[in-house]
């Protein structure tokens, strides 16, 4: 390989202008690929983070209730017209056991039982419909780190203490220490103190969520000792589907991952990824054609030299390697420069850009880009290299 690489490098160095132009071409392509890959990865991570900042990775709920139809005897045709059964608020059967089982499942990092149901929040003449959230604060915060989003007070829902969203607080004119009455359709009502106000940045949540103690919610919603859903957090968010299925088959509960409940987001992310991949692929293809055409020209220009090298004992395989190496070196050099340029673009975006989100650099991106470009260069060189190796030395030597 020593002499092949030596000849390859000398050939590249001798054709300075050609080499420089194609290296710049490769570098531009690689810079584009590195930048858009980093940007889209950053953007997607950001979107997912925002989405998952306010919802659990997996929601576990009781199965919908269905009408039981008695089987009929033989020879009888039964025509049934039925409406779907109204879904009343129900507790998960045996939920402490489910919770403990989930706690021990691998891949699950947080389990939080929640008692949730509809309620009205009243202060004076103002009434707002709210979602009552009875939680165990310690467990719940492992699902949604709401403490980070508190704008006043603390996330300490307890007996007679509630934590509400900023918009609800505004609508009802409440401040920290204020009181509101919570009423449910079951006729129960109670007065609670506002001990914290949060702002998650999602209108629906900020105007409707009222966090109370698990016990208080149970008694308000008339389901003593029950919980209506269990929120689950997982270590690998993209493995949520699998774990959700596992939970579904372990228990007879409805288990839905964030991917299933955010199909639109997932679709958007997928098509974004697809378009990024397509751009990258086509840029890579055009770079490959650039390398191939430069080397094809080089083979033609060096026909005579190839003939001489063959005459003095260079084998076909060596000749092949000389040109494959040139492709690889071009790819590597171009991608090294391109990666630096791509990093520069990322830095510019992070420091001077619109500041909508931060682009973190995936650690594997640069080595992968350089390796892929080197491989692309070698592949692109295949056709010219093959031609060089197949040149008939007799003809090549006389080529002018």
């Amino acid at each position, binding site marked *: 390989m020593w002499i092949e690489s030596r000849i390859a490098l000398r050939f590249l160095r001798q054709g300075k202008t050609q080499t420089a132009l194609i290296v710049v071409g490769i570098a531009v392509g690689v810079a584009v690929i590195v930048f858009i890959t980093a940007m889209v990865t950053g953007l997607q991570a950001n979107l997912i983070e925002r989405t998952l900042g306010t919802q659990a990775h997996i929601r576990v709920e009781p199965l919908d209730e269905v009408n039981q139809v008695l089987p009929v005897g033989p020879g009888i045709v039964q025509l049934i017209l039925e409406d779907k059964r109204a879904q009343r608020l129900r507790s998960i059967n045996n939920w402490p056991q489910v919770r403990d089982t989930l706690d021990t499942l691998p891949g699950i990092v947080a389990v939080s039982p929640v008692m949730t149901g509809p309620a009205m929040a009243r202060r004076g003449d103002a009434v707002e419909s709210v979602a009552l959230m009875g939680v165990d604060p310690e467990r719940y915060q492992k699902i949604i780190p709401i403490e980070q989003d508190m704008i006043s007070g603390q996330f300490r829902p307890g007996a007679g203490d509630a934590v509400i969203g900023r918009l609800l607080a505004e609508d009802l004119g409440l401040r920290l220490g204020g009181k509101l009455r919570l009423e449910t359709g079951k006729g129960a009502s109670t007065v609670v103190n506002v001990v914290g106000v949060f702002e998650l940045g999602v209108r629906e949540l900020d105007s409707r969520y009222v966090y109370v103690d698990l016990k208080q919610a149970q008694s308000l919603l008339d389901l003593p000792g029950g919980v209506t859903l269990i929120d689950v957090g997982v270590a690998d968010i993209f493995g949520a589907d699998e774990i959700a299925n596992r939970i579904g088959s372990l228990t007879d509960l409805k288990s839905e991952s964030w991917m299933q409940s955010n199909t639109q987001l997932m679709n958007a992310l997928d098509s974004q990824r697809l378009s990024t991949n397509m751009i990258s692929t086509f840029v890579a293809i055009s770079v490959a054609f650039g390398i191939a055409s430069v080397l094809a020209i080089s083979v033609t220009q060096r026909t005579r030299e190839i003939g001489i090298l063959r005459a*003095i004992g260079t*084998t076909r395989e060596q000749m092949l390697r000389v040109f494959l190496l040139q492709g690889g070196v071009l790819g590597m050099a171009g991608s090294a420069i391109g990666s630096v340029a791509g990093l520069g673009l990322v830095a510019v975006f992070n420091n001077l850009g619109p500041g909508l989100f931060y682009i973190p650099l995936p650690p594997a991106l640069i080595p992968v880009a350089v390796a892929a470009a080197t491989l692309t260069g070698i592949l692109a060189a295949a056709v010219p290299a093959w031609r060089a190796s197949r040149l008939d030395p007799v003809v090549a*030597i006389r080529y002018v």
Partner: protein
Amino acid sequence: MSEENGPVLQLSGLRKSYNVGLPTEVEVLHGIDLTLHRHDFAALIGPSGSGKSTLLNVIGLLDAPTAGELYLLGQPTRLMDDAARTALRGRSVGFVFQFHHLIEAFSALENILMPWMVTHGRPDRAAEDQARALLADVGLEQHAQKKPSQLSGGQQQRVAIARALMTRPALLLADEPTGNLDTRTAATVFELLRRFNREYGCAILVVTHDPRLAESCDRTIQLVDGVIVSGDDSLQSGRMPQPDI
């Protein structure tokens, strides 16, 4: 098979056709018998179109004969594959072409080392010393680091001769080595070939148009229309040339 004492090159009934199997098939060499021994210094002459270059290419294993056999250092070569031919060629044959044909991307010294490097890789001390000695032999020791384009035509041709001798080939083939040189430079180049023939004992076959050059060789092989008409040593032993079949 003794490489030391046997003939360097032996052709028997060697034929070469182009476009084999096509309506345009044409036979260029019609059964050549030729033997070259160590220390032979032979000129191959003939009018253009007589098949000189074809014969030289076949002898140099750049091209394969259509029929007949070619023994190089006693080894039959007709059925060798490309890899084996390339290896044998790199080891045993040196080429000097009309248009010097150096590799521009390498210095004079590296060009001389090239045949060694393509078979052995990075040159060791001994190889480098040998290349320098050859460069000195052709009188260009002070031009070791120059690129071919920085040398004159005669200097380039001398580098090419030094390169051809780097592997100590048993056979050196020169195709019009002085073809594009002026008379004085041509004489120097020819002297070099002569000297190396004596000193290294390699057989030399020179294709030339120059009758004076041909006269200064020990043997003159004349090729006309693909047949050797004089100079084959088999002729001296009384055999008639094979007529064109």
